[in-house]
């Protein structure tokens, strides 16, 4: 078996899931499909387990914030993006899942690809998207007591004062070299 063209991958998915593909497209020679989050696990399993496709690796999980952007195929604010790779066949593919602002929950792909664990943790850390079914959805990069999701477009670049909120350690007394004189310390010293 050999690598499929991007068109052939889309055709294979479309023929299997008639009507469940919201949109399709491509950029720089790599295609993607847009699917609903309710169909995510089903289509992911198909992409992984079908012998002609065999996407055995989930390269990356990330997200996009479309705040103040008009995107025709994704009307919602967020989209979770999955990058797929087939080691065996050597082709790649991309899956996008729209996520509405008021309900940022997506089913976890941990049961399909174990590699989703950390990718979903990072996406949760940066965008605040919940992955239902991820067994360990703690923060990955930011401190565990951090409040906020910094890659959301409405998060201020300089943060909300987190970087200024630490204990200050100060000297016992201010030191001024010009005030110090060896004469005062010990008048009978000669140098």
């Amino acid at each position, binding site marked *: 078996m050999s690598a499929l063209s991007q068109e052939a991958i889309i055709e294979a998915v479309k023929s299997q899931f008639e009507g469940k593909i919201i949109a399709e497209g491509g950029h720089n020679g790599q295609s993607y499909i847009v699917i609903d989050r309710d169909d995510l696990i089903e289509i992911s399993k198909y992409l992984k387990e079908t012998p002609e496709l065999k996407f055995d690796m989930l390269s990356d999980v990330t997200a996009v914030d479309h705040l103040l952007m008009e995107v025709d195929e994704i009307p919602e604010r967020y989209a979770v993006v999955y990058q797929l790779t087939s080691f065996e066949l050597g082709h790649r593919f991309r899956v996008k899942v729209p996520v509405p602002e008021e309900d940022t929950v997506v089913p976890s792909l941990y049961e399909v690809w174990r590699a989703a664990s950390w990718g979903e943790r990072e996406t949760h850390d940066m965008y605040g998207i919940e992955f239902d079914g991820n067994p*360990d959805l703690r923060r990955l990069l930011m401190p565990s007591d951090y409040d906020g999701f910094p890659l959301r477009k409405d*998060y201020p670049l300089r943060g909300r004062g987190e970087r200024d909120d630490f204990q200050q350690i100060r000297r*016992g007394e201010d*030191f001024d*070299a010009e005030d110090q004189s060896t004469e005062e310390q*010990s008048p009978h010293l000669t*140098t």
Partner: protein
Amino acid sequence: MGIITPGSNNQPKTLTNDIPVIKGTGAEKLLENKLVTTTVDWVLKWARKNSLWPMPFGTACCAIEMMATLSGRYDLARFGAEVIRFSPRQSDLMIVSGRISIKMMSVLLKIYSQMPEPKWVISMGACASSGGVFDTYTLIQGVDQFLPVDVYIPGCPPRPESLIDAVIRIQQIIDEGHPGYLSDDARFSPEEIERAAELFTPGPATGGGCS
């Protein structure tokens, strides 16, 4: 220190010019000026400034320049500061070389608090001194907001000569009588150290996620 050669007019003459010597009148004269009396304060300063034990807090590219400074080509050993200690308990000069994120700042404060006093701090490079180009939510805009920095080194990254100059400056301020001690209320309480340890204890990081 302490090597005295009798002078022609029976005055002590030292091999180094800067050692303060009390002129021999009593016991010194009896012992033919073969010993030198000075002050404990002076000896302590002399010992401290000439055997600084740096604690390298290298988090970025400045640390590469720091390694170059320590290695043979630039050879910080010439200035008595070659004994790099990776344990804060054994060091008295912290070199913050690199950008400090908000997650690392608690670690930095904890390690600094573990160093015995007296202690001094060099803030090496633009990032440690001011945040550098990283004016973002996650980066400390200068460690001197929270630590008592003694010497700043500009540069991105600074050359090893700059770091050597900073170490010499530290030696100078020690010589001038810089106390290097903290105030009582500036030290960490045991509860704060405990809390920092809880916040940054790594959990089961892989969590089965690597299969």
